[in-house]
Each structure stands twice: as structure tokens, then as C-alpha cells.
């Protein structure tokens, strides 16, 4: 590896190799590593052993075996996943993503392409352009790769014929015209024998271009992310102590310097950059690619998922946009279903509201579609529960990309590339004639529940319920809160506090809560509800698993001491009759879903516990 002395100037080149099965991808990568003497002796020995066991070349070493990794696929003789290779020459370091060519592996190719700056498209000189060549080029273009090398391989098998090469190049240029590549370099090679791989071949003296490796060493691929508008998705807020509040993240584009003003995309709040750290060094300015920690002049409310920019070139903020999606899950994409969308450091529930068309990746045709299956590409409208900050993918590959995550299985269901934003009015939700319970809930990206807070007056039920509601609201959830104050003045103003009236009071509240869960709400009910039987009644009304009895526990002495409304004093003095805990019994729950002790933990901590429990039950998404 004596040539692996790297110059500091040129950034690492991330490239992707694509081609149909047996076009010679693996052989080419193996050959590059071999010629650069990057294969070690022991690997070479293993390779010779393996070539005898699995190889397809009769006599010499099968380079493909060096790069086909996992056992299972080695036995089948195919590459099934993305493998990464590393090599370096004096001029540059390279990271090569090697992905398979079969149609069913579109998702792997998209994965490899998402981080690549350049793609090598391999074509077998004997076969010319194939359907796969078109498909790979289209995927590469969709993923925003701007530089392409067309490697016409196995040129040895066509007697190094110039015309064969020229014809393929001509066809490819014509095909690739609409794909928006900014550079396209064509080279005739033999991966097996090394022609034009890392030195110019004398057998193709009609070819005036340079050899493949030389081209890769020279090419400038940095689209100048530094010149693009400044963005900083907030990854982590670093608070080692009260005097330091660092906003940590990696800059995807642009530059930032101290003293410059910045704005938080979602809230529109402004501040000025006070300090910048790149890793642990304090600096005056930082740029795309740097992992930074910023401090601001003002105490702004900033959290993970926010995006900082300059005030005069802000990202878009919207909760509806159009996007290309590549479907990666065996479960089909169904419009209306709720997924989690991750963009930058923000995760939010989202759904595809409309699938506009499917794209045939073999020719870019638009096809009508009701769903997307594994490896299919579609163009659709996406709605998120919270507005998100983004740029069009064409302008910024980092702030314009998202993934969709299946909420049941946690698998990555899709890769998405944002085209442009939509105003609400342009996307009225369409649905069938009857709107089901599930449809209501799906639209709200939550599962309905009745959170029934029970306990003595003054135990803290309402305080906790209010906190829970505001936390849910912040996260974009839909809630309703029922308590004595809003129910007794209206719905139940005809009822008093006798045992019979108390039962009727709770029955009505239960019915209302039930109706609200039918339309998908998370309903918080805060009532003393002293009797087990009436709480049971509401439990039975509620949908399966939707009732959560939350016992807010506090010793009677404590609530008498707290007595926030002065009621205990009056009850003890006999001014109020039928007062729970004084002259009427409170029947403690026997099997409450949660027991909260308000004398031992803060209301906020207890509210957080309820949020955790809702996440655990899958009522709301864990963010």
C-alpha cells in the first residue's frame, strides 16, 4: 500500500457501481484493488482457495469473489446487498458502494446512490444497453447523482472494436439526455484483463480519453455545498451547565460565522451566533461538512429537529408537499396509512395523502397506481402532523430527503425526495362515503384513548391532566379534556352530588368520551369518580384497550392540608354535604392502569410518565 499517501486537498470520492448481473462489476472493483496492490497476501491466498471452490473463471483468480461478501449470496453467486469498499491512491481516497443489478434490488441501488457523488454504469460490450442500464441510470438520476462514467466492459470479447464502443456511447448519450447529469465520461475497458482500468491500453489506441482511475482521481464532484444557503438541522442541545447552551449538528450546506444572524425555521425567532465550535475547537466560522456546536446570543427555545438558517435565505416550511418515493418494504404503500417521517433530525407522523402516479423506472413513463409495492417508485402528496423545514431535493440533497418508517414493524419503508410544497387548499382530503373509526384515528396519526383520572379532590388530577394535554398538543396530537368545570356548567348542570347524581354524571361523561374516541381523539377525563362501579361502567363503554384508569393518589391529610379551593375546610365544617373523603367514601381502584403518587413526584414527571405509557401502548408515536 505504498501508494496510499493521500493529498489533503481532494475530498474523498464516494462512488457507486451499477450494471446488470455478470456485466463485471465485482470483477472491476476486484481489479482496481488488485492493480493498486490493495489486496493483501493473505486475502489473495483466501481468494485463490475460494476461486477453486466457487469461482467461474477456469484458471485465473476470480476477482468477483473478493467483493461478494456474505456466505449465502456467495453460494448463490449473486450480490444481494450494498457492500462498501475502500481504497486510496496518492491523489485521493475512494469509497465504493457495490450494489446488485436485479430489478428486485432497486432499494439497494437507491441506498448506495443516496450517498454517492458519481456512478459507474457498466455495460457489457457484447450486449449493449439493456433494460437494466436504463433502470440504473434513472434511479441514479432520481437520487441526484450528477456525475456518470459509462464503462463499456468486456471490450476484449469484441476484439477491441472501436465501432462497438462508439455505438453504445451514442445510444447512451441519447438516452441520458433528459436525466440531467452534469458530466458523462465513456471509457472502453476490460475488467478481467485490466485494459484502461488503471493504465491506458495499447489495444484501444483509437480511444483518445484517459483511463478510468485517472479520471476518477481528477474529477471535481463537490457541487459546492459551501456556496449553497446555510442550513443547520439541530441534532442535539448540549447543556453541560446553566451557562452553556450549545446547538449541535452537522452543517449540510453553506457557511456560518460568529456575529451572523440566524433564524429558527419553524418559529421564525431570530438570534445571532455567539460562538462556534468545530468538534472541540473554537473557531470564527464553519462550513458544509463540519460537525459544529453553536451558541446563540439569545435564549431561544430550540430543540432537536429545528433548522437554523440565515434570515434572508430560509428553507420552506410546510406540512404538505409532493415527493418521489422509492418503496422499500414488502408491505405495500397504502395512501392514508400513518407512517413516521424522518427528515434531518425531525421525526413526525405523516401519511401519503395521494399517490399521483407510479414511475416505470425502465423508461420514466408515468403509470396510474393505487398502491406502491416493494421496489416501485411513485410521485405523491405527503402530509405531516407538524410543519417541517425542508428544501427541494434538487436544491439540497440533505434537507430535501426523508425516510418513512413503518410504525408497526419499525422497518424503513421508503426513501423520499421532496419536489415542492403544497398549500392546504390544494390538497383536500378525499375519502369514501363512510368515514370509519380507524380512518378518523389514522388521519390524526394516533390511536384514541380515554385517560380517566380518578382520586380525591386536590390530589392533582387536573394539574396533571392539563400538563398531559399540553404535551400532546405540542406534539401535534388531537385531544379533548373533560372535567367537572366544563361539564357541570353545561351538559350536567341539572345534576347534584347525591350518590345517584354522581353515577349519572359519570355515565354521561363516559358516553361523551366514547363518542370522542369514535372520532379518534385522546380524551382526558378528570373526575373524582369515587365509586368502582361507575368507573367500571365507563371502562365497559370504551373500545377494547382504550380505557386507562389513572389513580392520582394522595393521602387525605395531604389534600386537606393543600385544600386549594378551600373546600375541605367547608366540608369539615359541615357546610358542604356528600364531600368525598369527608362524609362520602372514596373506593380506591383495584387494578388501575397507572397509579401516580402526587406527594412523591412532580406533576411534570408524572405527566411524562403518562406520555411514555401512551407511547408504549402505541397510542402516540415515540419521537
Amino acid at each position, binding site marked *: *500500500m*505504498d*501508494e*496510499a*499517501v*493521500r493529498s*489533503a*486537498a*481532494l*475530498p474523498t470520492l464516494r462512488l457507486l457501481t451499477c450494471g446488470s448481473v455478470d456485466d463485471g462489476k465485482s470483477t472491476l472493483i476486484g481489479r482496481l484493488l488488485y492493480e493498486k496492490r490493495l489486496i*493483501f*497476501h*493473505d*486475502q489473495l491466498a*483466501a481468494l485463490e482457495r*475460494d476461486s477453486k471452490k466457487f469461482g467461474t473463471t477456469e484458471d485465473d483468480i476470480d476477482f468477483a469473489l473478493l467483493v461478494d*461478501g*456474505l*456466505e*449465502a449470496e*456467495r453460494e448463490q453467486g449473486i450480490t*444481494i*446487498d*450494498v*457492500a*462498501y*469498499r475502500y481504497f486510496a491512491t496518492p491523489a485521493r*481516497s475512494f469509497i465504493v458502494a457495490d450494489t446488485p443489478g436485479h430489478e428486485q434490488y432497486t432499494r439497494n441501488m437507491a*441506498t448506495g446512490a*443516496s*450517498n454517492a457523488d458519481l456512478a459507474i454504469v457498466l455495460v457489457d460490450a457484447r450486449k449493449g444497453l439493456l433494460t437494466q442500464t436504463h433502470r440504473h441510470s434513472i434511479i441514479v438520476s432520481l437520487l441526484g447523482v450528477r456525475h456518470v462514467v459509462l464503462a463499456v466492459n468486456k471490450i476484449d470479447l469484441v476484439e477491441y472494436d472501436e465501432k462497438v464502443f462508439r455505438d453504445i456511447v451514442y445510444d447512451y448519450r441519447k438516452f441520458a439526455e433528459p436525466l440531467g447529469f452534469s458530466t458523462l465520461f465513456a471509457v472502453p475497458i476490460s475488467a478481467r484483463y485490466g485494459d484502461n482500468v488503471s493504465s491506458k491500453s495499447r489495444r484501444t489506441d483509437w480511444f483518445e480519453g484517459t483511463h478510468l482511475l485517472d479520471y476518477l482521481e481528477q474529477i471535481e464532484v463537490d457541487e459546492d455545498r459551501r456556496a449553497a444557503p446555510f442550513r443547520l438541522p439541530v*441534532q*442535539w442541545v448540549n447543556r*453541560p451547565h446553566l451557562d*452553556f447552551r450549545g446547538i*449541535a*449538528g*452537522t452543517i449540510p450546506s453553506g457557511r456560518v460565522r460568529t456575529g451572523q444572524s440566524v433564524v429558527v425555521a419553524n418559529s421564525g425567532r431570530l438570534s445571532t451566533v455567539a460562538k462556534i*465550535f*468545530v*468538534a472541540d*475547537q473554537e473557531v470564527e466560522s464553519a462550513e458544509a*461538512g*463540519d*460537525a459544529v*456546536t453553536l451558541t446563540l446570543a439569545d435564549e431561544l427555545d430550540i430543540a432537536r429537529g429545528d433548522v437554523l438558517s440565515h434570515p434572508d435565505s430560509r428553507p420552506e416550511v410546510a406540512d404538505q408537499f409532493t415527493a418521489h418515493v422509492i418503496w*422499500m418494504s414488502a408491505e405495500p404503500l397504502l395512501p392514508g396509512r400513518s407512517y*413516521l417521517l*424522518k*427528515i434531518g*433530525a425531525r421525526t413526525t407522523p405523516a401519511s401519503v395523502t395521494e399517490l399521483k402516479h407510479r414511475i416505470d423506472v425502465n423508461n420514466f413513463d408515468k403509470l396510474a397506481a393505487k398502491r406502491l409495492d416493494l421496489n416501485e417508485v411513485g410521485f405523491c402528496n405527503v402530509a405531516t402532523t407538524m410543519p417541517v423545514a425542508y428544501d427541494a431535493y434538487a436544491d439540497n440533497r*440533505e434537507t430535501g*430527503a*426523508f*425516510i418513512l*418508517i413503518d410504525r408497526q414493524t*419499525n*422497518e*424503513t419503508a421508503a*426513501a423520499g425526495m421532496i419536489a415542492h410544497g403544497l398549500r392546504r387548499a390544494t390538497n383536500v382530503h378525499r375519502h369514501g362515503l363512510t368515514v370509519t373509526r380507524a380512518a378518523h384515528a389514522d388521519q390524526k396519526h394516533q390511536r384514541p384513548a380515554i385517560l380517566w383520572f380518578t382520586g380525591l379532590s386536590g390530589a392533582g388530577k387536573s394539574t396533571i391532566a392539563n400538563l398531559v394535554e399540553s404535551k400532546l398538543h405540542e406534539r401535534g396530537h388531537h385531544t379533548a379534556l373533560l372535567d367537572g368545570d366544563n361539564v357541570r356548567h353545561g351538559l350536567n348542570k341539572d345534576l347534584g352530588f347525591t350518590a345517584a347524581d354522581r353515577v349519572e354524571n359519570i355515565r354521561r361523561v363516559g358516553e361523551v368520551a366514547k363518542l370522542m374516541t369514535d372520532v379518534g381523539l385522546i380524551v382526558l377525563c378528570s373526575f373524582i369518580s369515587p365509586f368502582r362501579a361507575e368507573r367500571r361502567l365507563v371502562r365497559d363503554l370504551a373500545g377494547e384497550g382504550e380505557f386507562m384508569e389513572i389513580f392520582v393518589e394522595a393521602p387525605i391529610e395531604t389534600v386537606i392540608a393543600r385544600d386549594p379551593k378551600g373546600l375541605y375546610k367547608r366540608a369539615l365544617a359541615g357546610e358542604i354535604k356528600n364531600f368525598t373523603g369527608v362524609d362520602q367514601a372514596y373506593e380506591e381502584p383495584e387494578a388501575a392502569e397507572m397509579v401516580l403518587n402526587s406527594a412523591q413526584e412532580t406533576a411534570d414527571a408524572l405527566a411524562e410518565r403518562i406520555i411514555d405509557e401512551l407511547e408504549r401502548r402505541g397510542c402516540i408515536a415515540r419521537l
Partner: protein
Amino acid sequence: MQNSLPAHLKSLEAESIYIIREVVAELRNPVMLYSIGKDSSVMLHVAMKAFHPAKPPFPLLHVDTTWKFREMIAFRDETARRLDLNLIVHTNEDGLQRGISPIASGSQVHTQVMKTEALRQALERGGYDAAFGGARRDEEKSRAKERIFSHRSAAHAWDPRNQRPELWRLFNTRVREGESMRVFPLSNWTELDVWEYIRAENIPVVPLYFSKPRPVVKRSGALIMVDDERLPLEPGEEPRMARVRFRTLGCYPLTGAIESDAETLDDIIAEMRAATHSERQGRLIDTDEAGSMEKKKREGYF
């Protein structure tokens, strides 16, 4: 010095910082596997930077088989002290009691019980849902296809056919109760990158990486250092002093030394550039089938 870092090292460092921060932001209870070697040293150094001026908000975990080189253990304790970090050391006590050792039980059983099982115990005991490891993709073929965020079932198993695609930098970190993530922030580093970074950043490493005369015996083609009196000598076997160093560090009876005169980082880097043997060659646990690492990983080896 930050400013003098070459472009490719700076971008590797930034990528690793991003990964480490993402884990801390999204997972509940992460831990950093600290194996004392050069990769762990780099990973820890990067983690210190990621949270500066705060400390990394997770503990370090060392799975101690009790057969590590003595210099490794001294270095480990010194590092935790110097950086003032919480270091958890776990040994499979049950395995110890059963008398498992690389000598009595052979490398396979020893690795299975004292490393793979011990790691599982430690992760379960700590209730960790994410564990950082210093593995690099250039180390070995099956690693080349492993994700940066590698999902593990509740039984700690890796399913190579069912890995989540990793697009852009949008890592899907979601795990269910009992499941976990193994996270490899140095995935895209090469061995040479690691040494160049250690030199550029002046990171302390275990002295065993540098050549000096050490007592060794030759066994099945590998040079084994006689680190303490537990290594039984075969009849007629006589330790000799040789100028050796190590490219990787593990349990001393299972780690082959290489003959070398490289006494400084510059020497090591120069030697690496001229090297003709891959790094894992020194590790006896890999010398069986090419697919051996993959098999071990499916069972929960890191």
C-alpha cells in the same frame, strides 16, 4: 490540531461525531464498548469531541476475559482516570468458575463464553438499547455489508438478510422493547485512516502497538507473547526475545505479534503502507473458514 487535519480525516471525524450524537439523541440508554485497542481509542477521542464541553453522556463498557495483555488493563484504567469517565468492567463469572480459558477450552469456546456470552450478559444487565463498537468495514468481508446502525433482536442476533437500508444520513434507530442497536461510528474508516488520525490528534494508544523486544513463542505460524506464567510451554518450547509489535490486540494467547522495528507512529504508518498482510491475520479466531466472522456475528459476537 483541528486545522491541520487532512480533508479526508476531517470528514471521517465529522461523520463519526454525527453518528454518536444521533444515538444519544434517539436512544434511551447507550453504552460504548471499549476494547482498549486503537479503534476504541479513536472512537472515544471522537466521542469526547462530540459533546465538548460536556462529557459523553454514556458509560464505557469493557468485557474482560481476564486474558488481556497486562499493559492493556493498565492502559484502560489510566484512560478512564485521565478522562474522568465511568468505566464498567464485566467478566463472565460463570465462565470463569467453569474454568473456561483460551488454553483449556480452545479459542472457539473461550470466545463464545468469555466474549460473546459475556457481552450479552453485560448488555442485558445494564439494560442498554444501544452499544457503540469500533469495528470498521474494511476489516473483513462480512463487515463490509453491515450497517452503521445494526439492528439486533432481543436474542442479540444479527440477521444479514434483513437489514434496514441506510439512506443519506437518515438513520432509522427505532427498536422495540428488548431489541437493541449496535452502532459503528468508524464504519467508513480504514486501518490507515485510524493511524493517521492517531498521529494527527496525538491520541495515546497501548504501547504494545510499538515494537520492542518481547518474549515470544511460535505456534501454528503465529508469534505468541508470553505475557504471564499462565501460558503453558510445550516440551522443548523456549520463549525467545524478538522485536515484535501488534496490529490488533485481544486475548494474549490468541493474538499473533508481527516482527517489526516500528517504534513510532511514523514507523507504523510507513510500515502499513508497505504492508502485505491484512490486519485480522494476527487474530487466531478468524483463521477457520472465510464465513466464520459472519457466523459469529449472527450469534451476537460484536
